[in-house]
């Protein structure tokens, strides 16, 4: 279906996510983390998931809770190790989860490429480092680049501030982070918002994610988790 669907519950929003799916999960630490969608995904039960997210969980909530529930086979992220990433750390050290570390900008740009129909791109990040291993190298105008492939999701779970009933999204402050890019890069994009408004309410000039990228929207009660990943 091309038009976004406004659903009544987070459980309805995540219905049908299959075992083995690649799920893009928004948020930078806890800012922009789609807590309600993740909790619903835990109840829904999909397993063997590959999660693409900046971090690998903070504290015991959100992504950390999904990891603790044993549903995740592999994590692609830029920064797993933090002061409060004990859930991931224990799983990783026990060999129970696979990790692919991706530089933060490459993580974003590889998803952008997936959403924009780019087959691959040459990027200067990580040249000469261990993360360049196995990547095609090319010199262009005297600078060295690595070939990077898109990261496409079966699903994206993101949080935005508000949606209209068509699915246009606006975000709030740095909670925007990966949301707009992930929304473009998944087959099915599922969004939790603090409020759903009528079309014409959002300033069209201020819409960040146009409705064409959005499939399901659910309104949730805002949770004000205190940031705790500081290091």
């Amino acid at each position, binding site marked *: 279906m091309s038009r976004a669907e406004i659903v009544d519950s987070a459980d309805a929003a995540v219905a049908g996510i299959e075992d083995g799916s690649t799920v893009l999960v928004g948020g930078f630490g806890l800012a922009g983390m789609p807590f309600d969608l993740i909790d619903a995904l835990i109840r829904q039960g999909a397993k063997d998931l590959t999660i693409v997210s900046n971090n690998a969980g903070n504290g015991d909530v959100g992504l950390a809770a999904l990891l603790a529930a044993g549903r995740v086979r592999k994590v692609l992220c830029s920064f797993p190790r933090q002061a409060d990433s004990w859930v991931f750390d224990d799983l990783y050290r026990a060999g129970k989860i696979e990790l692919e570390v*991706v530089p933060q*900008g490459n993580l974003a740009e590889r998803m952008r490429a997936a959403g924009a129909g780019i087959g691959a791109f040459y990027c200067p*990040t990580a040249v000469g*480092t261990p*993360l360049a291993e196995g990547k095609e190298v090319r010199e262009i105008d005297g600078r060295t680049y690595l070939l990077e492939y898109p990261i496409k999701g079966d699903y994206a779970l993101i949080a935005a501030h508000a949606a209209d009933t068509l699915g246009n999204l606006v*975000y709030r402050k740095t909670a925007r*982070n990966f949301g707009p890019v992930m929304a473009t890069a998944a087959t099915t994009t599922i969004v939790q918002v603090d409020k759903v408004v009528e079309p014409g309410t959002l300033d069209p000039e201020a819409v960040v994610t146009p409705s064409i990228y959005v499939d399901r929207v659910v309104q949730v009660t805002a949770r*004000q988790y205190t*940031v705790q990943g500081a*290091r």
Partner: protein
Amino acid sequence: MTTYAGVPTGADHRLSMDELAAVIARDIPAGSFVNLGIGQPTKIADHLPADSGVVLHTENGMLNMGPKAEGDAIDPDLTNAGKVPVTELPGAAYFHHADSFAMMRGGHLDVCVLGAYQVAFNGDLANWHTGRPDDIPAVGGAMDLAIGAKDVYVMMTLFTRTGEPKLVPRCAYPLTGLGCVSRVYTDHAVFDVGPGGVRIRETYGVGARELTERLGLTPS
């Protein structure tokens, strides 16, 4: 090539990290777009003069980031790259991650300041992974910043707790970027590094000749 004749002595004692942050703030050109990474370099913001016109970039998606938020000003939707709650200054702008990193990679960011495990004389940087088998690697935006900002400064102690130099002929730790660092700010001295080798710019409570010997630099 190393030069130390006439190196100015900036202080008669080894600098604290706060004093070092003030030295770096002094050297950041007015009006620059600057990224201060996470951890120690974020202290530099406290020493920028109010009229510096420096605009702080935080890679999680903001320009003109303000100081750390306290009390009622804490907003879970507004943090810096270290996930510390911060504030916004007039003229702030928010953007998504792909745009934020395009700002670095595209050469729009003037200066970034990073911590480091080691920096090589030629400007190679190692700051993301110790390489120990039990260590969980975490790169964040370090590799993107290292190749992106026009000038990459490092802020670190010059020696490890056991007295080993961290400014080295060749990095032993896994690299973050090749030849990307232009200047190294340490508690004992400030150095220019790069293809031309190391040049001591300023020392704090130690002679340039002694430093040259301890680091194994080639006297000019």
